[in-house]
């Protein structure tokens, strides 16, 4: 097989895997929530305060198809899902596509901004640890990641709100989608995430700067700045890309708290409400969406390694890639594929 054919074969397998992951996630969510007792419709109706008769309750439960056997309900949901119909929320009675359509832009803006902030912060901190004189700044900077990680993001959020919104009036909670409000919410969300990235990046710099090629470059009279930007940055970024892929999941998860603190209505708060009310159709759709995001992000991460480090292109065999890609799926630890990459580089 030529290299291109192998690459296509790899791409096709990855796509197929992605499809399977999404379908399984969809079905699994259904099963997990179906084994829980009750559903939001009958929960409301059976509240004794309403005093509804069994017959009244049965007719409404039947309207939602909740009287059908679980497998029939799963099949119905599935048949709709395949043609792109996400169903109707049992809690709000609104189409699920509308709920997600309204919540998604807010979360994308928040998570996207947070990601940029996290990456920029991480690079600044890591760069500082390499360039600042050892005696003072460096030690302090090296403590930054653990400091940032240990402060919960709602504390950071409350502090930002108190100072920038309530005292300075830079933004207000009535209009949480404004640029300024989004920036500060993203800061609260991005700071803990940047800590992880910085940690990995610092380790990367430290590791690369001890390599022979770095010593050689230094001996040729290259300045430290030149060495960092021209030689060390790209290989040191490699593990960051893997961590980044996992980080995106963390941004979506952390969004629940940040959204609550900043009064934003996004996917996080939608999930929170849907879990609280066992709103199955919404949860299924969100899980499927999350699966899509993870699969795409991991694919992009895998495909970007060769761009960051030419040595990967030279030594990595595409036929090997799917194995590491499997490990980089939603539930796998980041390091697995990083280690794999390191090995193939070495």
């Amino acid at each position, binding site marked *: 097989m030529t290299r291109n054919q192998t690459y296509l074969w790899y791409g096709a397998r990855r796509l197929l895997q992605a499809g399977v992951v999404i379908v399984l996630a969809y079905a699994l969510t259904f099963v997990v929530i179906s084994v829980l007792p009750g559903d939001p419709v009958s929960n409301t109706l059976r509240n004794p305060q309403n005093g509804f008769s069994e017959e*009244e309750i049965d007719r409404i439960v039947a309207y939602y198809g909740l009287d059908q056997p679980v497998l029939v309900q799963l099949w119905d949901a599935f048949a709709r899902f395949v043609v792109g119909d996400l169903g109707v929320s049992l809690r709000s009675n609104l189409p699920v596509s509308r709920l997600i359509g309204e919540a998604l832009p807010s979360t994308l803006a928040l998570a996207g901004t947070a990601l940029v902030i996290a990456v920029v912060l991480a690079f600044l901190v890591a760069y500082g640890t390499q360039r600042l004189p050892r005696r003072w700044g460096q030690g302090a900077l090296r403590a930054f990641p653990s400091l940032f990680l240990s402060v919960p993001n709602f504390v950071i959020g409350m502090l930002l709100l108190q100072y920038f919104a309530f005292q300075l009036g830079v933004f207000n909670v009535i209009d949480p989608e404004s640029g300024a409000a989004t920036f500060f919410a993203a800061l609260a969300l991005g700071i803990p995430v940047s800590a992880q990235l910085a940690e990995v990046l610092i380790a990367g710099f430290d590791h690369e700067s001890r390599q022979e090629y770095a010593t050689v470059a230094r001996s040729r009279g290259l300045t430290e700045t030149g060495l960092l930007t021209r030689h060390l940055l790209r290989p040191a970024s490699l593990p960051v890309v893997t961590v980044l892929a996992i980080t995106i999941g963390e941004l979506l998860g952390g969004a629940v708290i940040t959204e609550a603190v900043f009064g934003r209505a996004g996917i996080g708060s939608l999930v929170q*409400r849907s879990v609280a009310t066992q709103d199955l159709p919404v949860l299924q759709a969100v899980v499927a969406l999350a699966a899509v995001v993870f699969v795409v992000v991991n694919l992009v991460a895998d495909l970007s390694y060769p761009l960051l480090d030419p040595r990967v292109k030279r030594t990595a065999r595409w036929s090997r890639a799917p194995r590491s890609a499997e490990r980089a799926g939603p539930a796998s630890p980041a390091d697995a594929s990083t280690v794999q990459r390191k090995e193939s580089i070495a």
Partner: protein
Amino acid sequence: MTHPFSRTLRRRFIAVSGGTAAIALLAGCAGGSSGSDASAPQEGGDLTFLIDSLGDTWVPNNGSISSFQGHIFDHITDKLVYVDENGQASPWIAESWEQNDAATEFTLDLRDDATFSDGSPLDAEAVVANLDAWAFGDPENGINPIGLFPKTYEQAEAVDEQTVRVEFSAPTLGFIPTLGYHGSILVSPETLELPVEEQADLDNIVGSGPFVVDSWKEADNVVLTKRDDYDWNPEAFDREGPANLDSLTYKQVAESATRTGAVQSGQAHVAYNVTPKELAGLEQQGFTIGLPQYLGFVEGLRLNARIAPFDDVKVRQAFQHGIDREDLLSTVYTDGWAAAESFIQSNVPEATDHSEAFAYDPERAEQLLDEAGWTPGADGVREKDGKRLEVTLYSNPYIVTGAAVDELIAQQLGRIGFDVSIESYDVVTYGERVIANADLSNYPVSRSFVDAGTVASILTDENNGEDWFGVGTSDETLTRLQDEIAQATDADTRAAALDELQAYVLEQAYFIPRTQMVQRIYAQSPDVDGVTYNALAYANYTGAWLND
């Protein structure tokens, strides 16, 4: 959307300074502006209300009984009658009403000038369509009946354009007050025709209220704008014409501290459901604290007289007298909470003072337990036939103070020999494990009603009743009183029966009152004037205005 609030924000903009200093400064400004308090109503203005949740669904019939949506529905819809905070029903869309002697047939005379915001008339046909929808729902379209509507409803007919006759299968004295309940909102017949998915879109809910929906986003905000041709305020409001305010914005902010911070910094006018602990500070800063009581039951426990140890009246009475309610008020709450005088709230017209029956008396409580055969064991917990006097309390998840109240009560009862444990659940789990479980020894109660007749439907298991005390129809006095209340055809007879019932239930210690119920807490900027609270403790801003 361009935010209506930016003007106020600019006015209130404060320079960088230390946190407390800034807030003190702000409070100073706010206090100053409220100096001109007696000012005349002002036209215009945009009010922002921060709410912890916008509830689950906008389908009027499918919302829960005590709902966040009531705040919005109260402004975009009208009701047939207005029920004030004292439980008095007065004319609104129904200008007057009559009933037959048996209280089974009611005739409503409607005003002739009210219209829905789509231009269609609010006439007898529309009222009949609404009555049917409340009573029967539309199960084939996923629409529930409304819970509190009298089950005795048979039918309604439009006699002419302004007259509606309503028939019941049994005496239904509670019918008129029920029309002021927040579920009984009048919407256009076209709205009622819509399937559930479309009624769930607030844009499709067409009412006849002083405001109309301008825009909304699920779980985020609802913006209402005033309706210029509105001129059918409830008689009780004693005002004519449209609202003073141009718009009302309900913005969901889930985090309590954020709501408080936003009103303190002038970013919003009203913070809803702040915690009792925050109230003193807000009051010092000049905020108006609204703690309206709604009509209903006090916050307390109903005991299951079928389940040990509460199957013994003496143990129930010991429980009753073992609780120091003054201690509850001073420890958990603020001055805004009042002591219970009965098991229904004091503002219910039929409420009578029976506080003697449940006064704090630890000595009597211990004596009752001695008489019942429960003797103190080695660790202070009483025992009888080798069993310990154990009780589990299930904290009320609907009120912020639920668990704190239980902890204090556990200590108080521990002193007289009870071993009290506490279980706390979230709302959903609570629904599964507590509400739906008939075998627990006690249940917390925090429930509103608009008419004391409701009491009759819950005491026993007659007519699909809730059987609150687990005694079924075995308690003859209870059953007799329930029947007297349900079948009463005039208010005085019913009030007498209700008085007897309150005395009996409390003496039997079937119900353990704790404090009067305040479930809706408002912290309001001093700039806001002219707010009214109705029977369900919802704040109404139709007559409100903003002082500059």
